[in-house]
Every structure is written in structure tokens, then in C-alpha cells.
């Protein structure tokens, strides 16, 4: 996608095109597209290995499980990928996954079930949850864009603050008594697939189209590539970045909502530690930590790779002592495979 960034209007100061993208005509274009698919061979290999290890792997039920178990992670990766492409960081997403649904639930359930005692109408729960996500993103944006603080440290601080707020508001309790609206999205099935899978599919489709073909989406790449050049070219960089942070918060709250529904409770540690997996998936999927590079399709492939590995390790019954070592090892192999098949240096 770097290639298209360079040729897109309004980014004269963008990074120079990498070899192969420009000036090679149709074949170069095809090769560029192929690089989006760098992880596909790894995914195919995992599918073959999975099928060999356990025949039940290829059953529709099992593959649906893999997709459903990855929905929350995939929404976080979508959010993080867009933010990384814009050249920023957001570590606080994992805490939003816990705080947003926890507050949404605590404000509407009675105090007897560990609620806050406000007893607001249950219909407000989900809007509150999503609103909190947006507010967190907006606050991150305020600190980073207005006060010019480092995105890394701001969101690291927010990660801790938000988790602390959740524990403070709920007194560290898990929330068990959930309104039905919270359970619905995590459990419903639409046309044979879990609702959460449709939601994620839709979110990625919108993201891919927006980043690929819309002016604001393209400007995210421009900002991540060279923010000064983008500004000089007339992109309202702060406004775009602020929007990106708010969308990131919204997606994290949505992920929290789905996870709450699927697990039937809001754990005090919900989402804790997820951010490392989020970064792993994004980077395996080819999103650069330096900004301006990577595709959402690639990030989605990264999520699928991690999900398939998890599933295969469970099916194979790998012993608890070794599972982490094998998990990490397979990720490294997948990365190498992607490097070999795409021929592109990773960063």
C-alpha cells in the first residue's frame, strides 16, 4: 500500500516508492497486490496441519469457533492497525475493553448485584458503553494532539488509569447480573454465523474500503508517512487523528461488549494483557510500528493466524508446560514464511 500512498494526490513529500511498485506496469501492480496476501500461505499451511492433527478441525462448527473466539481481538487489531498506520500508538485499548462494558452494566443494574445504585434504564447500557469508548479516545486525542504529549506514554498512563477506574467503580467485583441486551450480541446467530462474526466482517469491510478509497482514509496513510508533508498538502491532520483515536476507542468498547456477551460477565481483569496480542497480530499482519505502512487485510490475516494456532494447540492437547513455547515458536515460523513468500523486508 506504500506505493499507492506515494501516487495519491496531496502527498508530495511522502516517502519514496519502494522498488517494484512503480514503473513496472501491470506485473508490478499484481506483485504489489500479492504482498497483501503474504500471510495466506501461512494460513493455508496451518489449515493443512490442523486437518492432519485432528479431523474435527475442518468441521464447520470448529471453524466458526475459531472466528468467534477471535472477534474481540480482531476489533482491537482493526483499531490499533488504523492508529499505527496514522503513526500513533494506543495502548489503552485493552483497558477500554473492560471499563466501557463494566460502567455500562454497573450504571443500569441494581446495587444488590454490585451495581452503582443508579438503576438507569437497561436500554441505556449499550449506548453508555460505546459512548465511554468514544470519550476515552477523545481524551487520548486531547492529551496527544492539543497538549502534544507522547502517544506512547499518554496511552500507557490511560491503560493503568482506566483499569484502576474499573476496579474502583466495581470494587474489584466481577459483574454477573447482566441486562439481556448485553448478552444478545455475544450470543446471537444471524444466518448461521455468530452475530459477532458478522459485525467484525462488516467493520473490516468498512475499514478496508475507507482506508483504500476515501479521501480521509487515504490521508491516514499520508499522516503516518509524513505528518508535516500531509499538513502542507492541506490535510487537517489533527482532526483526522482525533477521529482515528475516537474510532479506536469505539471499536474497543464494541469489542468489550462482544466479550461481555460471550463470557456472560464482566471480569475485573477483562482485556488485561490483550494489548500484546493485539500488537503481535498487527505486526505479523505487516502493519509497521513506524506508521504509514500496512493494510487492514494483512492485520486481519494476522488475527486469523493467531486464532488458528490457538485452536490447533487446543485440539492437539499440547501440555500446559509447553504451550507458550510452541505458540511463540509457531508465530516466528509464520513470520519467516511470510518473509519468504512476500520477499519484502519487515520492519
Amino acid at each position, binding site marked *: 500500500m506504500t506505493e499507492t500512498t506515494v501516487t495519491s494526490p496531496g502527498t508530495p513529500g511522502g516517502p519514496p516508492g519502494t522498488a517494484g511498485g512503480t514503473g513496472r506496469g501491470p506485473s508490478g501492480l499484481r506483485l504489489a497486490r500479492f504482498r497483501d496476501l503474504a500471510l495466506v500461505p501461512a494460513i493455508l499451511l496451518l489449515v493443512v496441519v490442523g486437518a492432519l492433527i485432528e479431523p474435527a478441525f475442518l468441521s464447520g462448527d470448529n471453524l466458526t*469457533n475459531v472466528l468467534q473466539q477471535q472477534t474481540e481481538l480482531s476489533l482491537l487489531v482493526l483499531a490499533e492497525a488504523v492508529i499505527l498506520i496514522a503513526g500513533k500508538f494506543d*495502548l489503552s485499548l485493552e483497558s477500554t475493553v473492560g471499563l466501557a462494558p463494566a460502567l455500562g452494566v454497573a450504571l443500569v443494574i441494581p446495587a444488590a448485584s454490585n451495581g452503582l445504585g443508579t438503576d438507569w434504564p437497561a436500554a441505556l447500557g449499550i449506548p453508555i458503553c460505546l459512548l465511554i469508548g468514544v470519550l476515552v479516545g477523545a481524551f487520548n486525542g486531547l492529551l496527544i494532539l492539543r497538549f502534544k504529549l507522547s502517544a506512547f506514554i499518554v496511552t500507557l498512563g490511560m491503560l493503568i488509569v482506566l483499569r484502576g477506574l474499573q476496579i474502583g467503580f466495581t470494587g474489584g467485583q466481577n459483574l454477573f447480573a447482566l441486562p439481556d441486551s448485553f448478552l444478545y450480541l*455475544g*450470543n446471537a446467530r444471524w444466518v448461521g454465523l455468530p452475530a459477532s462474526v458478522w459485525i467484525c466482517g462488516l467493520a473490516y469491510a468498512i475499514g478496508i474500503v475507507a482506508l483504500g478509497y476515501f479521501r480521509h482514509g487515504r490521508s491516514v496513510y499520508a499522516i503516518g508517512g509524513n505528518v508535516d508533508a500531509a499538513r502542507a498538502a492541506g490535510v487537517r491532520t489533527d482532526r483526522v487523528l482525533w477521529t482515528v483515536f475516537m474510532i479506536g476507542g469505539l471499536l474497543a468498547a464494541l469489542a468489550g461488549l462482544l466479550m461481555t456477551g460471550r*463470557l456472560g460477565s464482566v471480569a475485573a*481483569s477483562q482485556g488485561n494483557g490483550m494489548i500484546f496480542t493485539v500488537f503481535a497480530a498487527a505486526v505479523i499482519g505487516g502493519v509497521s510500528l513506524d506508521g504509514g505502512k500496512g493494510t487492514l487485510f494483512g492485520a486481519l490475516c494476522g488475527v486469523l493466524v493467531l486464532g488458528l494456532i*490457538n485452536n490447533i494447540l487446543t485440539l492437539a492437547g499440547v501440555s500446559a508446560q509447553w504451550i507458550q513455547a510452541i505458540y511463540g515458536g509457531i508465530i516466528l515460523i509464520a513470520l519467516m514464511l511470510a518473509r519468504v513468500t512476500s520477499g519484502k523486508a519487515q520492519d
Partner: protein
Amino acid sequence: MRSSATIGVALSALTLTLAACGSSTPSSPSASAQGGSAAAGGKIGIDFPRTDSDFWNSYNKYVPKLAGELGVDLMPPTNSQNDVAKLVSNTQALVSQGAKAIVMAPQDTGAIATTLDQLAGKNIPVVTVDTRPDKGKTFMVVRADNRAYGEKACEFLGEQLKGKGKVVEFQGSLSSVNGRDRSEAFAECMKANYPGITVFAEPTEWEGTKASAALQTRLTQHPDINGIYMQAGGVFLAPTLQLLKSKNLLVPPTDPKHIFIISNDGIPQEFQAIRDGQIDATVSQPADLYAKWALSYAKAALEGKTFAPGKTDHDSTIVDVGGGRLEDQLPAPLVTKENVDDPNLWGNQVG
């Protein structure tokens, strides 16, 4: 990769800073204990291991209450949030504030050893709750017999399933002594007594999401699974019930499709699930006894009392776990439909 390293460094730097701040901040509920009669020997410092689980929240509530009843001069408790680095700095802060005895619950049982040595050097007796440090001097370890949890779960499932079937086990973190003890005892008992039962041990690191994903996958692979052992009800109960509900497997014990479930912890939600016929049993981990005996032993240490291995006056056994280290193994009752309404269970005493 470099960025992840930076994340790590920054994270640990930040947690250290926070720990430093946190160590001097007293938690609120202790104020009531301050008025208790100043016992002989001086103040007792206590560190809570975490505030994000129902079990530990109950323990945290029992401590100031029982301190008042026992007449212990309790200092404002600190909270180490499941982080051994914070526990170390909290302990140092408590000592510098004048603690003569320390009660702690180190969740990382290896890394606390040097701190224990330092405290021993200052003649400050330490009582640990729930976990037994791998090394280092302790006055007393107050702990339920976690191997018994695994054995009770194994016997219960073995009997209910009549020695045949497939059982999913949600293992706790194997880096914690409690997760290890429960997993080992369960595995040994199953192997010795019920060879007809296949056990699928799922590593979960005490995380509900991992347990849910593993169970979902396993049920697809083996739809005839008929037993589940979860090593911590607080984290696994809701995800398990939610998943079984969505698969229409949450049926009463009389139905042949019923999956027999035994849990560990004894929180109120588990009791409710037992009453509703959703799960079959749990082993109640005694939060109240933990608080009571931890404080009692700390007080006794200051009064110069000593203890020897053998039966105690409160239905438990003090055992020498090696090197002269004593451990008071408190009883952990099995709770089933028959005794779930027993008012003596701590899960029935919390609101």
C-alpha cells in the same frame, strides 16, 4: 521488536513508580481496627494480594473486621495488585512504619524469598496466607490444602460419572503453587482411581476467555464431554455457564446430557448455580478462616508463642513442610446441593 521491548521497560518502570506511591497509601477499611486494644508486641502490617477477584475481596473485608474482634493492632493494609515488585516495596514501607509482624499472600512464590530473608534478619515474623513461599523463613503458612481440592474434585467427578467419560479441566496458572497443587493432585487421582476417564487439561492462566475458547473447541471435537473441573469459580463460572447455555447443554442433573461440574472457591455465585442445578459442587476456600488464622498467628508470634506439627484446636493440621517450616492446613469443605445453604459457609455470609 524494539518497540515491544520499550513497552516492557516503560511498563515496569511505571509499575515501580506506582508501587512506590501505592505503598504509602492506606486502604480505607482499616480505620476501625485502629481502635482495638494495643496488643503486646506491637503493630501488625498486612498486604492484600489483589482486589480484582471475589474471593480476595471477601478476604480483604474479613481482615479489618476480625482484627477488631481479635484485638490486633493492625496497620492500614497495603495492596500489591498481584505484583511481587509491589509486594516487596509495600513490605519495606510497612516495616519502616513500624510493623513488628507481617501478613502477606505472595502470589509469586519464588520471587519473595529475598524479602523473607531480610525480614528474618530484622526478627520480623511473617505469616503467609494462601500460598507457601518456595524458600525463605516464615513463622506460619496459613493455607487450605490445595492438593485436597484436586483430589476432592477428582473423587466427586469419578463417582458422578461412575468411572467413565471425558472431563475438561481448567488449570490455573502452573507458575502458582495453588494451580500446580490442584492440577497434580487431580491428575494423579484420576490416573490411579479412574483410568476410564479421559482428562483434557486446558491451560488458562486463570483467564476466563482462554477457558471459554478451550471448552468451545473441545466440545466441538468431543461432543460427549460429561464433566468439567474448574480450578477457580470466580473466573471460570460465568464464561462456562454462558457457553453451555448457548450450546443448550445447561440441563438438570437428571438429563442424560447433563455435564457434571465441580468448581473451587465457594463464592456466592457458585452457591446460586448449585441451587439452580447448573453446577454440581464446589470446594469452599475459607476466606474467613484465612483472615482469622493469619491474624491469630501473627499475634501469637508477637506474644512469643511457638507451634509444633500436629492437630490443632480448629479442625486443621499443622504440618512441617520441610526445613522446620510450618503450615496450618485449613479444612476446605465440599459444597453440594445438600449443604449449600449452610450458614457457616463464608459464601453465605457475604452480602
